[in-house]
C-alpha cells in the first residue's frame, strides 16, 4: 500500500507539471494582457515599461520558470479584475461549488441506487420499463433546458422555491454552508436537482445493469441454495459486487459534475467557481484561469486517488496487485 501511495504521488506531480506547461502555453496564446491593462492611447514607452514591470518581456521559458516557482509557493499572481491573489478569489468561491456538486452527488446516489436496485430485480416489468424510460429523459434532455424548466415550474408557476442566488449561509463546524439555514436549503434544492438529474439517470442504469448481470451468476444461486434471504443476497452479495463499477464511474463523474456546474451556476446565478471561470475567461483574467485549472486538476487527482483506494477496499482481488 505504501509503495502504491508513493507511486501515485509521483504520478500526481508529473501530471501537475505537464498541466502547468499546457495551461501556461495555452493562456499565453490567447491575447495580450497589455491590451487590457493599458488604456488604448498608451505610448510604446509606457507599454515597454509595464511589460518590463510585469516581466512580460522575458523569454517564454524564463517566464514559465518564474511562474512555476511562485506557483509552488501558492502565488498565482493577483487577479486583474479583483486585484487580489487569484488563489484567494478561487478558494472564496470553491465551497459554494463543492456544496452544490456534493449535494448533487449525494442526491444521485440516494435516489439512483434504490431505483436501480428496484428496477434491476424486476426485469421486464412495468416498474423496470418506467424507471428506464424516466432515466432516458434524465440524460437526453439538455442540462440547461432542464434547469430552465425547473425554474419555470417551481419558481415561476408554483412559487415554491427561489430561482437565483445562494441565499443565507451559516456556519456548521467552521464551514460556511447553505445547510445551516432554511433559506440556504431552499436556494440549494433547484440547482442541486438540476445538476443531479443526469447523474441520477446514470446511477440508475449502472445499478440496474449490474443487478441484472449479477443475479444469474452461480454465486447468487449458491447463496440461495445456502438458504440466505433474498434481502441479504441483494443488499450484501449483489450490492457489494456492483458497487465496484459504480464507485469507478462516480469518481469520474464527480469531475464532470464540477465541469457541468458551470451551466447550472450560470442559470441559477450560483456564486461558485463555474461562474467565476466564465467571467474570468471573458475578461482575460489570466491568473484566475491558470489557478482555476490547476486547482481542478489537483482535485481530479485527489478524487482518482480516493477511487483507487476505495476500489482496493471493495475488491479483494486487486488488493494484492495494488
Amino acid at each position, binding site marked *: 500500500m505504501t509503495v502504491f501511495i508513493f507511486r501515485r504521488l509521483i504520478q500526481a506531480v508529473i501530471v501537475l507539471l505537464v498541466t502547468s506547461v499546457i495551461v501556461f502555453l495555452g493562456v499565453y496564446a490567447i491575447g495580450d494582457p497589455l491590451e487590457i491593462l493599458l488604456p488604448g492611447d498608451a505610448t510604446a514607452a509606457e507599454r515597454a515599461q509595464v511589460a518590463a514591470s510585469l516581466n512580460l518581456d522575458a523569454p517564454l521559458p524564463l517566464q514559465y520558470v518564474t511562474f512555476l516557482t511562485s506557483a509552488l509557493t501558492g502565488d498565482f499572481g493577483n487577479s486583474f479584475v479583483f486585484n487580489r491573489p487569484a488563489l484567494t478569489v478561487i478558494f472564496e468561491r470553491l465551497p459554494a461549488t463543492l456544496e452544490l456538486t456534493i449535494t448533487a452527488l449525494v442526491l444521485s446516489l440516494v435516489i439512483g441506487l434504490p431505483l436501480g436496485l428496484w428496477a434491476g430485480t424486476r426485469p421486464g416489468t412495468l416498474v423496470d420499463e418506467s424507471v428506464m424510460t424516466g432515466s432516458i429523459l434524465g440524460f437526453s434532455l439538455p442540462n440547461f433546458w432542464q434547469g430552465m424548466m425547473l425554474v419555470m415550474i417551481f419558481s415561476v408557476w408554483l412559487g415554491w422555491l427561489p430561482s437565483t442566488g445562494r441565499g443565507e449561509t451559516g456556519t456548521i463546524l467552521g464551514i460556511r454552508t447553505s445547510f445551516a439555514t432554511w433559506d440556504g436549503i431552499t436556494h440549494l434544492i433547484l440547482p442541486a436537482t438540476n445538476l443531479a438529474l443526469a447523474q441520477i439517470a446514470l446511477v440508475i442504469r449502472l445499478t440496474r445493469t449490474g443487478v441484472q448481470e449479477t443475479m444469474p451468476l452461480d454465486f447468487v444461486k449458491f447463496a*440461495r*441454495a*445456502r*438458504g440466505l434471504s433474498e434481502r441479504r443476497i441483494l443488499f450484501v452479495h449483489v450490492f457489494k459486487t456492483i458497487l465496484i463499477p459504480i464507485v469507478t464511474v462516480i469518481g469520474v463523474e464527480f469531475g464532470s459534475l464540477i465541469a457541468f456546474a458551470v451551466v447550472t451556476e450560470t442559470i441559477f446565478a450560483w456564486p461558485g467557481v463555474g461562474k467565476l471561470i466564465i467571467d474570468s475567461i471573458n475578461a482575460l483574467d489570466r491568473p484566475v484561469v491558470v489557478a482555476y485549472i490547476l486547482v481542478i486538476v489537483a482535485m481530479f487527482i485527489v478524487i482518482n486517488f480516493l477511487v483507487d483506494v476505495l476500489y482496493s477496499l471493495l475488491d479483494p*482481488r486487486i488488493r494484492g496487485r495494488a
Partner: protein
Amino acid sequence: MTAPLLKVEGLKTWFDTPRGMVKSVDGVDLELRRGEILGLVGESGSGKSVTGFSLIGLVDAPGRVVEGRIEFNGEDLRTASPARLRSLRGDRIAMIFQDPMMTLNPVLRIGTQMIETVRAHRNVSRAEARAKAVEALGKVGIPRPAERIDAYPHEFSGGMRQRVAIAIALLHEPDLIIADEPTTALDVTIQSQILAEVQKLAAEMGLGLIWISHDLGVVAALAQRVAVMYAGRIVERGTIDEVLDTPRHPYTAGLIGSTPMANVRGQPLRQIPGTAPPPLGRPEGCPFRPRCAFATDICRTEPQETLAGGHGWRCFHPLQDAAEVRA
C-alpha cells in the same frame, strides 16, 4: 427397509420459451434412502441438473415445476411455501455446484459466507457460528482452518474452493446433499481426493447424496444406486451392479460401451451413433429411437417402466444379458 428420505414421482419441469415449451424434465421418478448415494447420470442437456434444482425449488424462470410429487422426510416440497423451502435449503438439503471458481462470492471472505449460512438457520452468535465454520473447514481437510477462514475465495485453488463449498454444505449436517457435477471442473488427482473425502463424510454422517454426473466411471466408484437420464426421463435405474453388469436399456449399454475402460486398446473409441435430440425436437415415443439399433414401430409409443425388483427400465426391446452388450 427404512422409509425413503426422498421420493420423487412424475416430476416435470418445463421451460416456457418463445420458441416453444422445453420439457427439460419430463416425468422423473427417484427414490433415495438415508445414508445412500445415488448417481444421476446423463449427457449434457438430459435434464439432470434441472432435476437437482427442481428438488429445492431453485429453477430459474421461465422454468417451472409443472407436475409431480417431491416428498422429503415425508413432507411435500411442491406445496411448501417459499419461506419453508428457504429454511430447508442449506439446512436439511444442501447443494454443491459444478464450478468452484464461480460458486463463492469473490468479494466476501469465506468466513463471512460461512457465518451467514450458519446464522441464516440458527440463532447463534457470530463467535459460535465462526467456531462451527472453522470446524467444518477442518473436517473437509483445509489446513489451518482458523487462519484460512479469513481468506478470500481467490486465495484458494480450485480443489480447495470445492472443499470450502463442501464444508458449507456440511455446516448443518444436512439429510440430503445434491451434488451437481462437483468434480467435473477439477483435475483428475484432485477429483479422486474429493471423491474419497465425500464418500467418507457421507458414510460418517449417514446423509443421502445425489451425485449428478456425466461420468459413469465416477458414479460407479461412488454410488450404490444409479439412475440413467436421457432427454428428460429416467431410462434405467437400479443398483450399480445391476445397471453396469446387466444393462437393459440400449442407451445405458451404449454409455458403458463408450467408456475408455470398456474399449480395446488401439481401437477407436466406441460411441453411440447420432446425437441427443434437441429439447424442442424430441421424437414421439421413445426419445432414443432415432439412435437405437433395436428400434421398431412399437417404439413410436411411449415405453412404460418395467420393474424387476429394484431394477427398472423403459424400453420395448430390453437387452437380455451381458453377452448382448458386447455384441
